[in-house]
């Protein structure tokens, strides 16, 4: 008798259980193993989704249990889609999403490219660069709040040093024109290392012989970069964009710590607005419709993006 794990498991199975299992088909056994996962998926994901869709057509308020729940049809959806304030929140989210991803990809890829070169202290620099993403967003938010403080903040003093301006003459978090950029800067500072790590994995996955072959063919470094490095790292880069896009679409903690959505509603991203509707105003039906609209948007965009990603991988 062999001493494989399977035979050990078979030997350890009580005879009564073994008899029962022997009577089951492979398909039935597979279902037994998969059933708990399917049950959890239904209970935790599918059921709440269906329930949320159901609530989105009502005027339900979770803080008013005695109130009559009325079916309002598509009224919640209509209100949301015609509310100019919500479109401003969408614009703020789009601005945040686009610029954070833009800067993180550019800086992250550049850092990865540099770190990929072999030099002394390479590991130390990698560790230092990835430190920000290991911090809690709440800590980062508070920390940058102090840096942006007009009277004592280091950030303002650095800008003042280079521009000759009075440090307290501009407010990164309090100015309508600067606040959207202040949150972009912090998110870029925190999450560029993540993009860098993914790009680094991509760069290290390129076999050396491809570059050696290119050298033999007398391809210039620039040509090697555009015809070997970029195409081979692109799927990794696109994956990083997908992750950061999904994460930043639901960005909440960092921005709440920094600006609370202000000044006014300048940095009130959709997730902050949704939280206010759902858990501060307790407009549960309305917030459910809002959540469904956001879900469909993210799901739709992500699906298109994943298809594009697969095409790039196939090339």
């Amino acid at each position, binding site marked *: 008798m062999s001493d494989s794990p399977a035979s050990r498991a078979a030997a350890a199975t009580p005879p009564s259980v073994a008899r029962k299992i022997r009577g089951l088909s492979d398909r039935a056994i597979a279902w037994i193993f998969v059933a708990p996962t399917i049950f959890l998926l239904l209970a935790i994901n599918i059921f709440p989704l269906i329930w949320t869709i159901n609530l989105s057509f009502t*005027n339900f308020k*979770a*803080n*008013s*249990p*005695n109130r009559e729940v009325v079916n309002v049809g598509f009224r919640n959806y209509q209100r949301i889609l015609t509310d100019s*304030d919500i479109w401003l929140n969408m614009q703020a989210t789009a601005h945040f999403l686009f610029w954070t991803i833009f800067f993180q990809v550019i800086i992250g890829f550049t850092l990865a490219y540099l770190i990929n070169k072999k030099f002394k202290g390479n590991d130390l620099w990698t560790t230092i660069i990835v430190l920000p993403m290991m911090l809690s967003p709440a800590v980062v938010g508070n920390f940058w709040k102090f840096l942006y*403080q*007009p*009277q004592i903040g280091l950030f303002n003093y650095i800008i003042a040093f280079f521009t000759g301006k009075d440090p*307290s*003459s501009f*407010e990164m*978090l*309090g100015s*309508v024109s600067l606040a959207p950029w202040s949150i972009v800067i912090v998110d870029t500072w925190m999450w560029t290392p993540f993009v860098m790590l993914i790009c680094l994995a991509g760069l290290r996955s390129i076999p050396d012989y491809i570059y050696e072959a290119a050298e033999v063919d007398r391809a210039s470094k620039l040509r090697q970069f555009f015809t070997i490095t970029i195409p081979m790292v692109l799927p990794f880069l696109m994956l990083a964009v997908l992750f950061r896009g999904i994460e930043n679409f639901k960005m909440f903690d960092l921005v*709440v710590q920094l*600006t*609370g*959505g*202000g*000044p*006014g*509603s*300048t940095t009130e991203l959709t997730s902050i607005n949704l939280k*206010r509707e759902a*858990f*501060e*105003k*307790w*407009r549960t039906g309305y917030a459910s419709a809002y959540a469904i609209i956001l879900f469909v948007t993210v799901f739709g965009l992500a699906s298109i993006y994943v298809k594009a990603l697969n095409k790039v991988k196939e090339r």
Partner: protein
Amino acid sequence: MKTIKLASVSALSIAAASVAGSAQADDLTLCWAAWDPANALVELSKEFESQSGHNMSFEFIPWPNFADRMLNELNSGGKLCDLLIGDSQWIGGGAENGHYVKLNDFFDAEGIAMSDFADATVYAYSTWPKGTPNYYALPAMGDANGWFYRKDWFGRDDIKAAFKAETGRDLAEPKSQKELLEIAQFFQEREIDGKTVYGASIFTERGSEGITMGVTSALYPWGFKYENTPGSYDMDGAVNSPEAVEALEFYKEFYETATPPGYTNSYMGESLDAFKSGQVAMAMNWFAFFPGLYADPATGGDKIDFFVNPPQNQAGSTLGGQGISVVAYSEKQDAALEYIKWFAQPEVQAKWWSLGGYSAHNSVLNDPGFVDSAPFAGDFLEAMGSVQDFWQEPAYAELLLAMQKRLHDYVVADQGTAQEALDKLVEDWTEVFEDEGKL
């Protein structure tokens, strides 16, 4: 056999004693905001523990999360709190949604008379519907938004002379909102002892209730009304009246010309910090903080003085403060009611005031020595005579967040005009009341 009998009797005695003990002594949890008066209440409650045998635990939540945390607790039927000192605006929701125990029968049975408490506090903290004799809380902590200033700076000859030269009048506690702004503007970016100081710190916070509490401190003295006719929800022409527009424009001017840079999202904590760090000449904040400010070794004592929110067209202060309620989901309601009975006693209320809590009991407030008992006591009495509160409707959170948005958009983000901000606020509030079926 004798030994068995003895052991049985001993076991029974111990069991009986423990059962009796558990029937008598409960572990009560009181929930409130984390601030100076809460510490005073812990001290005060020791007396209740020794008298009743109950153990008191406390759950104090920082102000920015207080409403969120506690309203979630109530809405989910949570049993964390047996007693809750909830904000005045929660009374409507607390009563209509069945979160608070109605106290009328208990008050009648125990001889607790609401006439023993200041009328304004009973109206604001205890009754729902407003002004009716349906009580859901006992006034626990009277409070209003007031002001404090650097008395030592106001008393300096060089500063007094400069102020006189600039404005033509003597530097003293302001008698109107416009005087208040004039003084704040005078101090703005002034050099005092080699340091640049600023006029005043005011409330501009966006997330919870800050800017609304600040702006209403200007709106009420200008004669702001929520409705044209009380109880009608008819707001157009009242909320966006010319007086309200003028008051809002005033607050924006105050924010832009007389506050320190960077105070774009400031509330209680930031106001205290600005004052204690010597950045500002004046600051607005709740009376609840005044005992702590007066006791502060750096900026308290003879360096500080207090004044009531100045009038303009009329006297008016923003109401703070809370009532104490028994949570309907508590399994220890009898013990919780015992606490309220104990707390309502005049001698306990007197001790409450002496420890730093603001009693609303007439025996304390009408005491001849009350006005002189603290440098802010007289101002507190004056403020409580002209307080006005925000909506206390069950939908107060929706009403508050709408106001927070409109005010912050206008005052801090400089978007639109005061008239537009208030017109939009009327639209928002109308939508809320329509959803509530009240319009």
